[in-house]
């Protein structure tokens, strides 16, 4: 699956799609593959603050729990309510309909410090090499 070039990415495999002062956050295709079938999602309510590098929620497959870290700081505007009844959306469309939360950015410039798609793809190809070594 292609990694959208207008998104930014973290080493914890979250993506962020910033548009002006707000941004959508989700987990990458690589992350959903690693996790397997997602069966449960726990997300913060609107109004909650998220802090860069700190966990704000979790995504669970049958086998594992994965904490989700905030790529940047901000305040939750909306959580993706669809995921409660259809958590598999994260597997089916991780970069689109499977988004997790929408936040109001504390400092929009923070986003630029994250990896772009090319850097992230290089990062995961190295991870894959390590895993198969």
């Amino acid at each position: 699956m292609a990694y959208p070039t207008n998104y930014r990415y973290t080493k914890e495999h979250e993506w962020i799609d910033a548009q002006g002062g707000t941004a959508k956050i989700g987990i990458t295709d690589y992350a959903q593959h690693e996790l397997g079938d997602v069966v449960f999602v726990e997300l913060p309510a609107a109004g909650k603050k998220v802090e860069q590098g700190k966990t704000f929620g979790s995504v669970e497959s049958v086998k594992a729990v994965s904490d989700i870290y905030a790529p940047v700081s901000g305040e939750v505007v909306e959580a993706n309510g669809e995921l409660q009844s259809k958590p598999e959306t994260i597997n089916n469309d991780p970069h689109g309909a499977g988004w997790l939360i929408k936040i109001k950015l504390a400092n929009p410039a923070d986003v630029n410090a994250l990896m772009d798609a090319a850097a992230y793809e290089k990062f995961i190809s190295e991870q894959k090499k390590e895993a198969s070594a």
Partner: protein
Amino acid sequence: MESVNSPTNSAPRKTPLNALHRRLGAKMVNFGGWDMPVEYPATGGLVAEHKAVRGSVGLFDVSHMGDIRIRSGQRPGGALAAVQYLTMNDASKLAIGQAQYSAMLYPEGTFVDDVIVHRLGDDDYLLVINAGTRDKDVGWVRENTGNFDCKVEDLSDSFTQLAIQGTRAAELLAKLTDANLSAVKNYWFTHGTVCGLPNILIARTGYTGEDGFEIYIPSDVATSERVWNAVMEAGKPYGILPCGLGARNTLRLEAKMALYEHEISDKINVWEAGLDRYCKMDKGDFIGRAALEEARAAGLKRTLVGLEMVERGIARDSYHCLDESGRHIGVVTSGSPSPTLCKNIALAYVPPSFAPLGTAVYVEIRQQKCKAQVVATPFYKRQKKASAS
């Protein structure tokens, strides 16, 4: 106690099918010092594998399991005496061709490992043991059979063990063997030709709570891959899937089958684990018996219960159990979503006062108290066939 060889410190061991799993694109994990497939995403992954077993058939590589053969020495009876002393079930009740679930215990009445004891012949027994405890178990058997007239052989690396599990497992395997499988009852075994290989041990055993067989074939890579592929080919009409340890875990959890270091360990005794019916106190002495007498007289401090989550949340291994006031009362040993029941289930140790069905127990999930209730186990019980076959 002898020192336990810790294989996780070195490179993980591989079964003869390791390369095949990788070619199938399996997601691999280190399990008890073994590099094993956890699921095969290319063919649908864990949930699909679980459902294949419940609804049709799945194939597992379980070659990481170990095998210890105990035979009598000069005089008959030595092997039986050794097995009786080493294990808690009554092996004298076994006919040739029959197997039983049992366990080896420490003198404290806690678990060295759970095992399946097969009676191969008059003075010939095979103990199938767990992967993570293989070296410890072999050492334990050798140390504790010195006073018996018997020979102990570690055959763990001699077999590739395949588990063919599911409602249609018998139908599938019948296509590949001359053995009369309908004559092999649950927890019995036979020998027959499988895929042209003579004298293969075919046991109607498994770790899924479903009907199924475990076959023990020569462990060279070529034979192992040939038989694996033949089973997959013969299983095509049934929609057979290769299954990993992930599905193995959810299947055995639904059936409330114990996993070492989870429901049973060197800290948990037989009564706590609720395995009373496999422990025969009146069969004569065995390691752990005296401690179990004392433990029975002292009464239970904790007991294994089944939980079903009432509130949103998934209980996981080692999460804490709380009472309504938030006081710590126990621990989850295994927890997962149940693909068959579509509920979040768990096994947990709690004080006996919390064991009655319907009792509210809370599980601490990421600092939050989530309500669960005690339910009957096993969570899943297979339908017994109406026919006498």
